[in-house]
């Protein structure tokens, strides 16, 4: 047997293995990595584009991209079309931008049913309408069935931000707010995979967050800084990957209160059965953010008043100690580290 240096599923799972691939194989080989304040190196949810000299505005342009490859294509609570719109709308939103327009590039295998394609597009449309974004340009490629078995949808997005929210802006004393329960998306998908076959009423949380977060993003300090100091959407790699990234990039420590992290009982049970860690499971309709302490209650109240934020909670706070580490206070009062996931959350029996 010879060992080749090949890509495995772990390389796309949002954990340490993926970070290695991106920083070595991608960042390491690209020379021009920035066209504004936030660029490729920042590995944020998107990037900013500097305006030509004669632009004269207090806004910044934000762009982001994601390719969507979910299986099954239709799942409880959503489908690949809804996901493709939400993924990009949410990345723009957690950068502090108002999403304005999306591109939509579809790669579909020959043999795909046209009716299903149309259902997916209709779902994209419904979601785009909800999120008040336009789909302004696109691309369609078909490839032979023996080369691709389904459909891949890339959406890239553009938005305008009065104040960019980075993922490295946490400061000691900031409160950590999570906008709802974790793990719903990942577990609802896993339940339908071959070899698991769980029955559950659980639905994916996939949803556009721009409306939920709009008002919170408008709260500023007297000197015009945003009340939200850092924000991400905890997708692949789950809450654990996102909060670790924010903590490391911000050079602070974070202490989370395990008993305050909202999680549904079905998610908890499925995770127990499969030996999975709910903090590593993907979400598609949640944001995790740092909020200046004096605004935490105001933000929480705004979130609670919105259908997508009913379960929002303050789950912890930023500290000056424990630099780069996320600590979890467990129900027995002990502190333990919450680590960056390694690779794909794989169901376990032991």
């Amino acid at each position, binding site marked *: 047997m010879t060992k080749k240096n090949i890509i*495995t599923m772990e390389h796309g799972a949002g954990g340490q293995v993926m970070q290695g691939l991106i920083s070595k194989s991608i960042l390491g080989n690209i020379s021009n990595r920035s066209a504004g304040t936030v660029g490729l190196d920042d590995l944020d949810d998107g990037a900013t584009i500097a305006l030509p000299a004669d632009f004269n505005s207090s806004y910044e342009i934000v762009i982001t991209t994601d390719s969507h490859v979910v299986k099954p294509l239709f799942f409880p609570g959503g489908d690949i079309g809804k996901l493709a719109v939400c993924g990009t709308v949410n990345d723009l939103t957690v950068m502090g931008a108002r999403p304005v327009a999306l591109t939509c590039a579809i790669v579909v295998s020959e043999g795909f049913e046209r009716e299903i394609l149309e259902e997916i597009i209709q779902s994209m449309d419904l979601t785009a309408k909800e999120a008040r974004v336009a789909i302004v340009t696109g691309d369609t490629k078909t490839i032979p069935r023996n080369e691709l078995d389904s459909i891949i949808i890339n959406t890239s997005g553009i938005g305008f931000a009065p104040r960019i929210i980075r993922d490295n802006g946490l400061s000691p004393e900031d409160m950590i707010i999570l906008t709802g329960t974790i793990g719903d998306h990942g577990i609802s998908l896993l339940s339908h995979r071959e070899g698991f076959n769980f029955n559950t009423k659980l639905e994916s949380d996939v949803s556009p967050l721009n409306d939920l977060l709009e008002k919170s993003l408008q709260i500023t300090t007297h000197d015009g800084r945003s009340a939200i100091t850092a924000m991400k959407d905890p997708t692949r790699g789950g809450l654990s990957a996102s909060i670790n990234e924010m903590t490391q990039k911000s050079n602070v420590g974070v202490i989370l209160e395990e008993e305050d992290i909202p999680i549904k009982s079905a998610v908890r049970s499925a995770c127990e059965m499969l030996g999975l860690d709910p903090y590593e499971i993907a979400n598609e309709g949640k944001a995790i953010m740092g909020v200046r302490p004096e605004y935490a209650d105001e933000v929480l109240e705004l979130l609670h008043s919105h259908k997508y934020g009913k379960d929002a909670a303050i789950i912890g706070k930023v500290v000056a100690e424990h630099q780069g580490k996320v600590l979890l206070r467990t129900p027995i009062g002990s502190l333990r580290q919450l680590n960056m996931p390694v690779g794909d959350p794989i169901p376990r029996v032991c």
Partner: protein
Amino acid sequence: MSMEAKLLKSICDRSRPIRIMHICGTHERTISRYGLRNVLPKEIEILSGPGCPVCVTPVEDIDIAIALARSGIIITSYGDMLRVPGSSMNLMEARSEGCDIRTVYSIDDAITIAKEHPSRDVVFFAIGFETTAPTNAATLLRKPPKNFSLLTSHRLIPPALLHLLDETNIDAFIAPGHVCAITGIQPYQQFADLGFPIVSAGFEANDVLLSILMLLEQSRLGRPIVENAYPSVVRRKGNLKAQEMMASVFDVADAQWRGLGTIKNSGLKLKNEFADHDAVLVHENVIRSYKKETSYERINVDKCRCADILKGKEEPDHCPLFGTDCTPVTPIGSCMVSQEGMCYNWYQYRNV
């Protein structure tokens, strides 16, 4: 005052220097998740034994599974097996190379796959301790499809524990509650007889705390016995039906443990009457031709200090491979493969 707080207080009151080993990944999970070690008095040390059946699966067995997969056979296995390294790659990498390797939650799902592909051979990579072996026995007793066979790599806990005692540094044991649900606690009497307090425990934080408290009490009294702190699930004699099924399908045999070497009577092999479903026999040709091509370069594996670490004699960073050749992404010994392994946790949480 919560139950956990009460237990903790009792433990602190009775605290004494003691090195307690558990032998169950799920116990480690409870201990890590609740951060139990941080709230226990420093003098009470909790160590991880060889409690991950997946991680102790030897390199050769992984290689055989990959060789079978490469010959076109569908390999089914628990997700845990995917990252365990063979001599040149793990099952996940083999799948990336085009092999048909599928994870299942239960052997019953593997049977379903075999029925859905009657024209292909399906092998279930059957690993696990006494908890898992009966499920595979039950399946064979139900006459599985002809195209279905087991690649067995089962291991038994007591012989391995006995092997560690050899030159160990451990004072007491937490016995694995789910293993005991099948076997009962009788097989652990021998450890009490050898002078080790031993308690079968459940998997909630208070279950584990209770067992620690009971071990401290035994230690204080200087009266090592085998106790059951998990009576809602573990019966003294265990699950007799499951034991019978296991006995009618498997014979006890010597077995190799990754990082520990060969341990007498520590494994299970299929009885002759199940030869038609024994992957090693059914696919003898594939395995023979694979073995011809393979020569193990064991240089790295030989340097692994897992055995000493499991015996409590060494700490991970004394291993020459630790953090360089051996990391969670490129693990060598079972202590790094397993998320509950000492090397893994040392690497992940001590930020080397």
